[in-house]
């Protein structure tokens, strides 16, 4: 059985538009982690999903910036409710 805590961990790709979540972890290599960090995507930062058409590509708002995460990228970001 999943515990409630585990259940609340999802991937960014599953978050519908309009919701704000907290970034938990980036499941990617060293390079990706550093690159995303430069764009403000570090653990615990709030992400507002602006567009998610369930086709993979997503637009999120981080602080004051909008960032497109192409297909495949949004599945690498683990998020949790705020």
């Amino acid at each position, binding site marked *: 059985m999943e515990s409630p805590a585990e259940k609340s961990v999802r991937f960014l790709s599953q978050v519908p538009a309009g919701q704000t979540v907290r970034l938990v972890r*980036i499941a990617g290599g*060293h*390079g990706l*982690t*550093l*690159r*995303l*960090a*430069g*764009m*403000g995507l*570090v*653990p*615990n*930062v709030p992400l507002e999903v*602006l*567009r998610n*058409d369930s*086709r*993979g*590509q997503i*637009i999120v708002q*981080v*602080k*004051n*910036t*909008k*960032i*497109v*995460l*192409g*297909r*495949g*990228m949004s599945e*690498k970001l683990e998020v949790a409710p705020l």
Partner: protein
Amino acid sequence: MDASGKKAEWLVALAGNPNSGKTTVFNALTGTRQHTGNYPGVTVEKKEGICRIDGRTLRIVDLPGVYSLTAYSMEELVARRFLLQEKPDVVVDVVDASNLERHLYLAVQLMEMKVPLVLAFNMSDVARQRGLEFDLEQLSALLGAPIVPLVATKGEGIDELKKTIVRCAEQVLPVPAEIRYGPELEEAIGKIESVLDEDHPLIRSYGRRWTALKLLEGDSEIQEQIRSPQVSDVLHQVRQHLTAVFKESPEVLIAERRYGFISGACQETVRQTVLKRQDFSDRMDAVLTHRYAGLPIFAVLMYIVFYLTFQVGAWPQGWLEDGFTYLAQLIGRFWPEGVSGEIKSLLIDGVIAGVGGVVVFLPNILLLFLGIAFLEDSGYMARAAFIMDRLMHRIGLHGKSFIPMLIGFGCSVPAIMATRILEERRTRLATMLVIPLMSCGARITIYGLLIPAFFPAPLRGPMMWLIYLIGIGLAIVCVRLLRSTLLKGESVPFVMELPPYRLPTLRGLLLHMWDRGWLYLRKAGTVILALSVVMWAATRYPRPPKDILPAGESQQRRLELDYSLAGRIGKWMEPAIRPLGFDWKIGTAMIGAAMAKEMFVSQMSIVYSISGEEDLERLREHIRRDYSTLQGFCVMLFCLISTPCVATVAVTRRESGAWKWALLQFGGLTALAYLVTLLVYQGGRLVSFLTA
């Protein structure tokens, strides 16, 4: 250096996140006009310029935009190597003041390198609109670097920036603040520091702390340079320890602490007076990136760009044609007696026919680049990447590849440079190789000559679309082929910042348009002019002996052509191109087109020039008389696909780093062109034979 130890020349680097306005600042400082645009990754190569102030010379270097100073992308490496190796006297970090926290992340890394830093708070106008107020004095004290607010597009604050740069270069300024990373990380940094060799050049320049921090971050380039087994051991040990304690890799911890430091500094010094979101951009995005409407809107925008180029461009084109005809007649009428007729022929049949035939397309080129500049400056380019991501995935690329392809409709050379925004090498190479299939501006001249020659007015628009679509279709096929053979690999997902929409300024658009137009004119005045003279000579000499000349001017001209060098070369290559429906005249024009696509039209006008008749309509009549519609179509097809021009091959060689890719592009596309044209011509002949 003079006696007082003061240099009169300083090296100044402009660093900053992508799209923060570095190039705009660079242009304002140096009075140049490097290309700017409202999407990340416009500048891909460092550019140098000179700025003079009070008898001093500032050598300014515009670096590609980077989010941080790691060693993972080409831009980051270019920027970092420049900072490490050239050791600029001052580094100006251009930050977007309306988006401070994110942009200061790079500033913090520069502070840690202990470079002499000036912070340029650009886009102060946008920050003001968003109701942001800064306590610059306190913020400057907290960060330990002077801050200059700017509005680079209007030139506001540029003088102050110059003065600050000089002050920073000539006086010792406050030491940048040092970020503390908390007890565990500090302990780890200390442990690494203690095993570093003091004499290593890297450490002598940048200190133990910076080197240790970079090592802890897992920086591969620094690790390679240090290369000490003892350091590796300690590094391994502390990384493991930290990961066990925090369940987080050290580089993530470091990044988090940096953002923590920044948000601490901003909390005390930045006030938001009105809470306002950038709702204009949000509303635009709701429509332009809409799930269903996005793609059709994109199609409409492209339609408008090409409508402008061809339909609206046709009017001024007509005026230019009239102008050149008039000029040729004028020269013909007032040619002084006694001055050689050969020179008159060179002027009229060579220069005016060759160069004029190309220059008349200037309006179309200007309008095409106006359209592209609008897409670039408005911020739509990055949205197009988003919209196209899904489709591009189907062919093994991703949305970002679409930006260089779009630029390719203007010119392949900047488009191939723009592939640098693609991080992954295979994706980048695949994109680079097919860019010539995006029909470029120079090829407009060929379609502009041939389509009206063979097709009635209502069919001209659709024909033009057909040609462009064939190019795109072939590009898709080629990319799929490349991605499943030579350049196989998973497509790496992309991230890209979406800039806020900005209304492009008329001045910016016109300047951009003019710069491109000027390039086109310059090419017409140099390369095309020179080649036209060569072609003129090749179609005129050697001359047939007088006694075999038949009567009648056009018969004479035909014999002269057969007898000339171009005629002989053309005849020699004719067997190879005959199956495509080309005769020797088209063949020699194709050789010209391989140098520069515009040469096709120049060459045709030279071949067909009969003194004094220099307008395109006349030329079209001749062409219509000599060739069938099918042949005309095949010529366009061949020019669309074949032999990227010399400049394209050269830039592909440089950007791919190897001749083999440039040769593959050249050979592959030429072979493809031959094959496709052969099929179409022979197929077309068969059909007309069967239906006749």
